[in-house]
Structure formats: structure tokens, C-alpha cells
């Protein structure tokens, strides 16, 4: 799709004969896709490390005092509209990729933390007691027993977070980030439906492809 779209000008020209420039040309679709993927990728990397880390921390004895508040925070935070979070980042850091990344991290963290806590607390007593019984250290128990057992739930949280962030990053174009949302936003403000469709198709495919990739990852696990 990414390879074919640059050559589709005649099709869009035929579909929308009244438009002088039927194909989005301000940046190449490849650049847009790479930039979009980079934003989501960087944010997701931070989100996964930090989110799983926080989830592990609050389920250990040392972090027990933080478990309740983190739970409350995740519950409140998930009700915030992602676009509002993105918009709030602008007064703080200005326009461009920075507010987008910050919003992606802030918003993407919650599902991962929530899923990590849920996964780790949902493990039945028996395997944990068995792990203690055969003399695993707390670290060994975490790495060899708890995390593998919680992995499917954590992965589901990561998946939710990444897919959510692909959508939020699209809106990131309104604050000046270069993403696959850029043709959509520009098309909407310039009444150019061809741009909108080109961007929407690409970003839709990107999200669905990522979702399918997670499907396969879940199969492997």
C-alpha cells in the first residue's frame, strides 16, 4: 500500500476531478509512516519498560503502599479523553513531536500498569507457594514463575496501549507532529477529501496490521 499509493494520483484524480492536487505531496507517505511508527515505537518502549516496572514494583512488599494509589490513578486516568491529554501537553512543552510523545507515554502507561498489576495479582496461590517451596529466591520466583504466568494479560495491556497510541499519534498532527494523520488534518482543513482518504487508509491499515502482529505474538507466547 505504502509502495503503491504514490502512483495512485490518476485514480484519485479520476475520483475527485475538481481537485487540483489529488495526491498528498507535502511529505512522502514513507516519511509519514516512518515518523508515525517512530513516535509510537519510542513512546511504547518507554511505556513498556516503565509500565511493567511500576506494575512489578507495587506488587512487591516494598511497593505495597503505592499499590492502592496507583490503582486509583490508573482508574481516574483512563477516563481522560486521549485528545485532551494531548492538548494539555501543548501549553507545557509547545508544539511538535514533544507533546505527542509525552501524551503517548502518559496515556499509554495506564493500560500497561493496570494489566501488569492485574496479571501479577491474578496468579493462583499454588504455583507461587510451590516456587517458594522449591527454594526460588524472590527474583527467581518473579522471573521464572510470576512473569511467565502473567505474560498473556500483560501482553494484552501492551496491545491495548500500542493500538490506542497509534490513534492518538494520528491526532498528534494537530499539534505539529509529522504522522499519517497529517494528510487527514490537512485534507479536512483544506476541503480535500482525497488527502483524508489517503491518510485514513494508511493509518487504518497500520493499526490493523499492528493488531494482527499482536495476534501472532500471542499465538507464539
Amino acid at each position, binding site marked *: 500500500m505504502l509502495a503503491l499509493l504514490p502512483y495512485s494520483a490518476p485514480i484519485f484524480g479520476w475520483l475527485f476531478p475538481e481537485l487540483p492536487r489529488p495526491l498528498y505531496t507535502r511529505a512522502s507517505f514513507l516519511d509519514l509512516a516512518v515518523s508515525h511508527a517512530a513516535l509510537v515505537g519510542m513512546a511504547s518502549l518507554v511505556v513498556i519498560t516503565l509500565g511493567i516496572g511500576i506494575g512489578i514494583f507495587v506488587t512487591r512488599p516494598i511497593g505495597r503502599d503505592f499499590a492502592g494509589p496507583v490503582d486509583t490513578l490508573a482508574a481516574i486516568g483512563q477516563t481522560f*479523553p486521549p485528545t485532551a491529554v494531548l492538548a494539555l501537553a501543548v501549553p507545557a512543552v509547545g508544539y511538535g513531536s514533544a507533546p505527542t510523545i509525552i501524551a503517548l507515554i502518559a496515556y499509554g502507561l495506564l493500560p500497561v500498569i493496570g494489566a501488569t498489576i492485574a496479571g501479577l495479582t491474578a496468579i493462583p496461590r499454588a504455583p507461587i507457594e510451590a516456587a517458594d517451596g522449591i527454594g526460588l529466591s524472590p527474583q527467581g520466583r518473579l522471573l521464572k514463575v510470576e512473569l511467565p504466568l502473567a505474560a498473556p494479560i500483560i501482553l494484552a495491556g501492551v496491545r491495548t496501549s500500542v493500538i490506542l497510541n497509534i490513534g492518538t499519534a494520528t491526532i498528534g498532527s494537530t499539534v505539529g507532529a509529522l504522522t499519517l494523520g497529517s494528510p487527514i488534518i490537512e485534507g479536512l482543513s483544506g476541503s480535500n477529501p482525497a488527502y483524508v482518504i489517503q491518510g485514513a487508509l494508511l493509518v487504518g491499515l497500520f493499526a490493523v496490521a499492528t493488531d494482527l502482529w499482536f495476534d501472532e505474538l500471542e499465538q507464539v507466547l
Partner: protein
Amino acid sequence: MTSESGLSVISPPQAAAPQLRSGAGRSNPLLVLIVGGIAAAAMSLGFVSVAPNRILSGKPVALWSAVDPGVTALLVALIVGLGVSAVLRFGVWRDRFTAIIAAMTLLTTITAAGQAASLVAQASGPIARTSLGPAFWIIAAGSGFALADAMARLTRNMFVQMVVVAIVGGAIALLAASGALSDLSLAREFANRREAYGSELLRHLVLVGGALAGALPIGSLLGYVAFRRPKWRKALFAILNLIQTVPSIAIFGLLIGPLSALSAWLPLLRTLGIGGIGAAPAIIALTLYGLLPVARGVFTGLASTPPSVLDAARGMGFDERQILWRVSIPLALPILVTSLRLVVVQLTGLAVVAALIGAGGLGAFIFQGLGQTATDLILLGALSAIALALAADLLLRSLAAAVTTGASA
């Protein structure tokens, strides 16, 4: 936006939250962190930001230079009080004390910001703009969260939590109505757009309400079909999941083409206001989004009736309709209300994006503000959208709590 809603629907509302609250007799390390952050922010960051007019960017002003020494002293005393409550080792009384001090800190901070703005207005005339600075936001967010955390420790009773939220919210509204905050640039922005605000808020509610009017019946029907026809289940949820996977803005965009073509063909649609842009495609797209959580909630709810109860009901001579209405639906009520909450909150958030295709709503302020680099306009839209989503969440949580106690008490 794949399965955030779906994931949570599967676990019943009460069982989902693990018992993680720390017991009585321990100090509160989180509150120590919060108070530390508040103190550091108050000392090093601007409490408000003052600009000569709307266009120029502001300069940060510290708390003690912005307000009366008395107000500064009160705020400092409250923050110290919060710090003391963090290291106390009592249980319930400590948390009640924390809750009260946190609520007072929150209200005092807001009052102080209002006072700072009034002082600036007196000194530099009505064109000068006083916007809220990072220190204000950190104190407000920190004390607000300290309040929420203390309440969560104190009670799981949703009604009590509702009352506290109503009292604090009412106090803030009272402050705003008294005019104490009206010199803040946020309030001025609101005053300039009072009429537009009312109509955009209404429009936002119409978008969400319209989408619910479509998604609830259709989604319920799909959920029921998934429940009765196991063969269709997988394909049905795969399709609904696909819709949720595609970013909202892309769905909005993809609907433009077909809908504008349709309205070009059928002039009747155009006279009804249904076209490529505006409220109609937004409501259609939001409806599509709402289908998955509604359908999944209905399916999960109906499928959660214990097999033994179904067997007993059949054996006693209930027909299928009686089983559905007298047994399965009443038993599924907590799950149904929880999925309703998730749908309403999700659609309230997504409706913000609808402003991009000319559907209006609170998102209009956000995107106008982003276009004009008008921070206060962005804040007005974003804070309103957040408040609306939180209010819907709290209201439906209370409903879920009422339904759950009704079902088990």
C-alpha cells in the same frame, strides 16, 4: 482502542480491584512524595503567569509575589499540615485528616490563583492576562490526588465518594460564581464564549447521546446474537474489534467519501443535514465505536449466568424468554452497567475528535485553541472534556454500585 473496554468488562466490577489498600498504622510514603513535589514546585516554579495582553507570552510569578502574605501563609500551613498527616501512623483518623486538609489545600490554591489575577487586574488594567502556572497545577493536582487517595482508603462506598466530590465541586463552582476567579484568563476566555460554550457542550452531549441511541440497541442485539449463535460469535467480534482498532480520525475520514457521495445522490439527505462532514458522520462513527463494548458487555453478561442456575430454571419450567428476563438479565446487571460506563466514557472522549470534521462539541475549543496558539482556549476545552468524562464515570460507577448492592444485599 482495541480492548480497553473489553478487558475490563470480563471481570465483574467489584472483584476486579484487588485488595491492595495498605492497612492502618502505617505511614503514607506516597503522600510524603506528593507533599515534597508540591513544596518543591511552589518554591521553584511560577504560580501564575502574567502577560501584558492575550497575544504576548507571560512571565512566571512566584506564589509569594502573586498573592497576599496571609494567603501564602495559609497555603504553606496547609501544605505543612498535609506533610504532617503523611507521617502520622494512625488509621482512619489520619485519612480523614488528610482528606480534609487536601480538600482545603485544593480550594485555597484556586482561591489564591483568583486573588493573584485580581491583583494583576487592579495593577495593570483589564487587558493584562493572568494564566495558571506550573506550580498551581502541581499543587492542585497533588492535593486533588491526595484527596482521592484518602477517600479510596476511607471507604469503598460510592455514594460517600459522590457526596465528597459534590461538596468540593460545589465549592469550586461557588467560588467561580462569586466572581473571585473571574480575572483569571481561563475565566475570561470562558466569559468571552459563554454562549458558544453552552451550545458546544450541548452539541457534545448530543453527539454522545446520539451515538448511544444507536450503539445501545444495535450493540445489545449483536451481543445477544453472539450469545445465542456460537457459530457467529468469532466473526462478529472480529469485525467489531477491527472497527475499534482503526483510529477514530481515520473512521471519521473514511466516512466522508461515502456519505458525501450519498448526499450528492439523494438531495433529501442533504436537506436533513446528512453529508460528509458535520454531526451525522460523527454520530455514525461514534455509534460504530460503541458497538464492540456494548456487544461484548451484553454477551459477557448473559454468558455469566451459572449453568446450575440455568439448569434449575429450565427444570422448573421457565421458558426461554422468562429465563432471559427474570434470571439472566437481572444477574448480568452489574456487568451491563459497567460496560455502559465504559462506553459512555469512551464516546465522551472520542467525541472530542469529532470537532475535526466539523461536528462541533468541546473539541472545537481545543482545536481552535491549538490553531490560534491560545493556551487558555485549549485548557477550556480539554479541562471541560476531562470533567465531563469524569462526571459520567463517577455517575455510572455509583449506578453500578447501587445495582451491585441491590443484587447481593
